[in-house]
């Protein structure tokens, strides 16, 4: 038992001891290696080596060197000066331009190991010490600070005799940043650094290198704080910014004040559609089909007995200009009119020319003439005396128009109508209905041509050559805003206008047909819409019989005068001698015309000569189904 235990123990011991035995084994030292040799000033140098394994035994190291072309092997003179595992060669032992063959030997009890030899030449292994006495100061140059860095070469390096020439390099960075800014300083020992951050803290380091050699280590860091300084440049920018902001504010304010007029200037308003039955909203909603279908007036041509008053524009103004010339400038007058008419939108200005244009007038003149000829023929069928009269009158008129006479003969005291102005009208049969409709049509044409709310322009009354069988649908398309007042005493050359207008005077439409002062206008009838249909009264011809609607005994053929607002005051000669000057109804100012008042008086009590236009307006509005451009004096829906 004991034996077995002993054997087991021995076995175990053996097993455990073998590794121990291994660990205790000695060996010669490992191979050392020369890591580097450096000379700080080209006068001495030091070599360092790395020892290998020591083999478990105390190992000593020796460095042997052999100079070039000499067989003598010498040992390192100084092992301690440079520290552990180093060899220092002092000045006496150092030769330049001479190759040294250096070897390190590691020796221990068991043997020695040689390192690989290394050949060095002192001049090629120069690595100086870092520069010394690095000073950094803040200096100022015209208000801008800069750093001045100065240093000295390492004291060991002999630059004075020129033995070593050093070049320097420095680096700068802000304390908070990570990147260094490098500057090569050459051989100088002073350097300036500009473009500093106000109030920043800088770190500066310098190093040097011989002309052929290695860079030294960086010198110890120097700290410097740049004082706060105010950027003059920045203050200027601040001033500029403030100033421009101020100007910008002023401009904005000005713009805001004038935004309205500017809007007009830059984005002139688009005229709205002037089509009867046009509903913008429908179109906006995308229901174009419905919108367009609304345009199709069901009762067009009107077959029902619509009011004739529907067809006529509300007011009628007859002007007799004081001067011979009617210089009507479309823009001026229209503008005036437009501005005055309250409900007129700015689309007053547009489309104005169509009815008014000189050329158009000319064309219409010719065409109208033919139309009228035809209508004359048609009307001849009527057989009414009035018609004939009318026809004659028309013919005369036409001739005048045709000839372009400046001063048509007004001796007959006719009111010159304005046949030539209007677009060729469709020819209607001579049925009253048709003629009415023609009137309406004419009016429509005129209106549509002019594309203006009638109130804005003058009230163009479609006057297709009086073909109304009433022998007078002489509705007049008269311009409002004729600055000239209608005076009863105006001379004949006032007549110019009607025809002359048709030819020359520009915006045509504006020119009001001038009534001869002595001309008579007879109210023929009043249509359903309370429009007065006037007819010229030929002196001596007497009354026209067919004025059924006219209340008997009333004669509105005399022009009493024109009041200050360019409103024609017709004199109503009634049995009862009821003089009732027609006063204008101021809603929009000048655009009033007697017509309105007339309607008022006629439809209502004669006593109530002057009335406000309100009721009439309503009627007008109501009656005019689909007419877009009723007089602006009546508040119409703007587009």
């Amino acid at each position, binding site marked *: 038992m004991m034996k077995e235990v002993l054997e087991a123990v021995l076995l175990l011991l053996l097993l455990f001891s073998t590794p121990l035995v291994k660990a205790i084994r000695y060996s010669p030292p490992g191979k050392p290696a020369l890591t580097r040799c450096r000379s700080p000033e*080209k*006068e001495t140098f030091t070599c360092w080596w790395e020892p290998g394994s020591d083999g478990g035994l105390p190992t000593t190291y020796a460095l042997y060197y052999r100079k*070039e*072309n000499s067989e003598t092997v010498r040992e390192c003179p100084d092992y301690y000066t440079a520290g552990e595992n180093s060899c220092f060669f002092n*000045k006496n032992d*150092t*030769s*330049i*331009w*001479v*190759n040294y*063959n250096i070897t390190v030997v590691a020796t221990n009890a068991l043997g020695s190991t040689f390192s690989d*030899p*290394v*050949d060095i*030449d002192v*001049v090629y292994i120069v690595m100086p010490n870092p520069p010394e006495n690095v000073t950094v100061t803040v200096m100022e140059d015209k208000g801008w600070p800069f750093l001045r860095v100065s240093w000295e070469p390492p004291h060991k390096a*002999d*630059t*004075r*005799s*020129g*033995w070593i*020439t050093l070049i320097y390099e420095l680096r700068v960075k802000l304390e908070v940043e990570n990147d260094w800014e490098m500057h090569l300083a050459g051989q100088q020992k002073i350097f300036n650094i500009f473009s500093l951050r106000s109030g920043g803290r800088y770190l500066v380091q310098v190093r040097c290198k011989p*002309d*052929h050699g290695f860079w030294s280590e960086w010198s110890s860091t120097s700290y410097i704080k740049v004082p706060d300084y105010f950027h003059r440049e920045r203050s200027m920018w601040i001033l500029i910014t403030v100033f421009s902001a101020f100007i910008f504010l002023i401009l904005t304010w000005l713009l805001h004040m004038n935004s309205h007029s500017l809007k007009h200037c830059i984005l002139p308003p688009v005229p709205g559609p002037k089509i009867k039955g046009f509903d913008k909203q429908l179109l906006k909603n995308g229901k174009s089909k419905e919108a367009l279908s609304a345009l199709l007036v069901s009762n067009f041509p009107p077959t029902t007995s619509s009011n004739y008053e529907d067809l006529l524009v509300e007011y009628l103004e007859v002007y007799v200009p004081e001067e011979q010339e009617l210089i009507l400038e479309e823009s001026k007058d229209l503008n005036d009119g437009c501005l005055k008419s309250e409900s007129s939108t700015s689309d007053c200005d547009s489309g104005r020319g169509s009815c008014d244009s000189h050329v158009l007038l000319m064309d219409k003149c010719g065409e109208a003439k033919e139309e009228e000829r035809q209508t004359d023929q048609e009307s001849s069928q009527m057989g009414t005396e009035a018609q004939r009269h009318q026809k004659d009158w028309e013919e005369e008129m036409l001739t005048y128009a045709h000839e372009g006479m400046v001063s048509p003969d007004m001796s007959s005291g006719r009111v010159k109508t304005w046949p030539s102005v209007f677009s060729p009208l469709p020819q209607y049969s001579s049925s009253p209905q048709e003629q009415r409709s023609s009137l309406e049509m004419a009016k429509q044409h005129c209106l549509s041509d002019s594309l203006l709310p009638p109130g804005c322009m003058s009230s163009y009354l479609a006057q297709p050559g009086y073909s109304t069988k009433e022998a007078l649908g002489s509705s007049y398309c008269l311009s409002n805003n004729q600055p000239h007042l209608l005076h009863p005493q105006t001379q004949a050359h006032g007549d110019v206008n009607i025809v002359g207008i048709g030819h020359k005077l520009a915006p045509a439409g504006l020119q009001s047909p001038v009534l001869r002062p002595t001309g008579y206008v007879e109210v023929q009838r009043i249509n359903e819409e309370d429009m007065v249909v006037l007819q010229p009264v030929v002196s001596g011809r007497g009354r026209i019989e067919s004025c059924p609607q006219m209340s008997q005994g009333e004669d509105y053929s005399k022009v009493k005068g024109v009041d200050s607002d360019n409103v024609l005051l017709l004199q109503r000669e009634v049995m009862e001698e009821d003089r009732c000057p027609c006063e204008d109804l101021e809603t929009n100012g000048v655009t009033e015309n007697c017509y309105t008042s007339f309607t008022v008086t006629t439809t209502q009590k004669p006593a109530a000569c002057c009335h406000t236009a309100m009721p009439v307006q309503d009627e007008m509005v109501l009656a005019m189904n689909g007419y877009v451009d009723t007089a602006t004096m009546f508040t119409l829906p703007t587009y």
Partner: protein
Amino acid sequence: MHMMTVTQLGVWAGLLCPYLLTASIPQDCREDQGSLSRCPSISQEKLLDRVIQHAELIYRVSEESCSLFEAMFVPFPLQLQSNQAGYTCITKALPLPSSKSEIQQISDKWLLHSVLMLVQSWIEPLVYLQTTLDRYDDAPDMLLNKTKWVSEKLISLEQGVVVLIKKMLDEGMMTTSYSEQGVFQYDVQPEMLESVMRDYALLSCFKKDAHKMETFLKLLKCRQTDKYNCA
């Protein structure tokens, strides 16, 4: 045209040299540093600076050539042992100082003469080196160009040093040749490795000597304390 004008000016300057020295205008002497007849009026400081620049450049180029050659032709194990084959530098025989203390004791005259000796002794070997390099099959053009450049610059350096000697030491001297022809054995067909090692040794030696020249001249410069401030 420019050269002609300079030549004319130089001739006139040469003729009027004594009168011009008082008010010397720096002439354009760059193209030929050492030509006495052409540029007598260059100042000593400028000449010395120019000479030193030459020497620096020569050293830099020779260092590059040596590295190139070493990388291309010399087998790696032999690279660190430039003189293993026993080739000594041709200028070994020259009595040159080898430590700072020694050099400090040398006079200006000796410094200049040493430099001149060095320069003159290397002119021919470099020419020889060029021929040998041409014999290599795959010698890179850069190496050839560099060696050619160096040999050219060496000649102009010699001229400059001669002028400098004349200026600084007031010595006139002839450009004597220190060439040691005996060193070079113009073998017809040397062994490749041998040839390589020899050329490598040659380049290394030249590199060292170029450094010597540069150092001497810089020392010389800083000795003129009244004109320079080397500290």
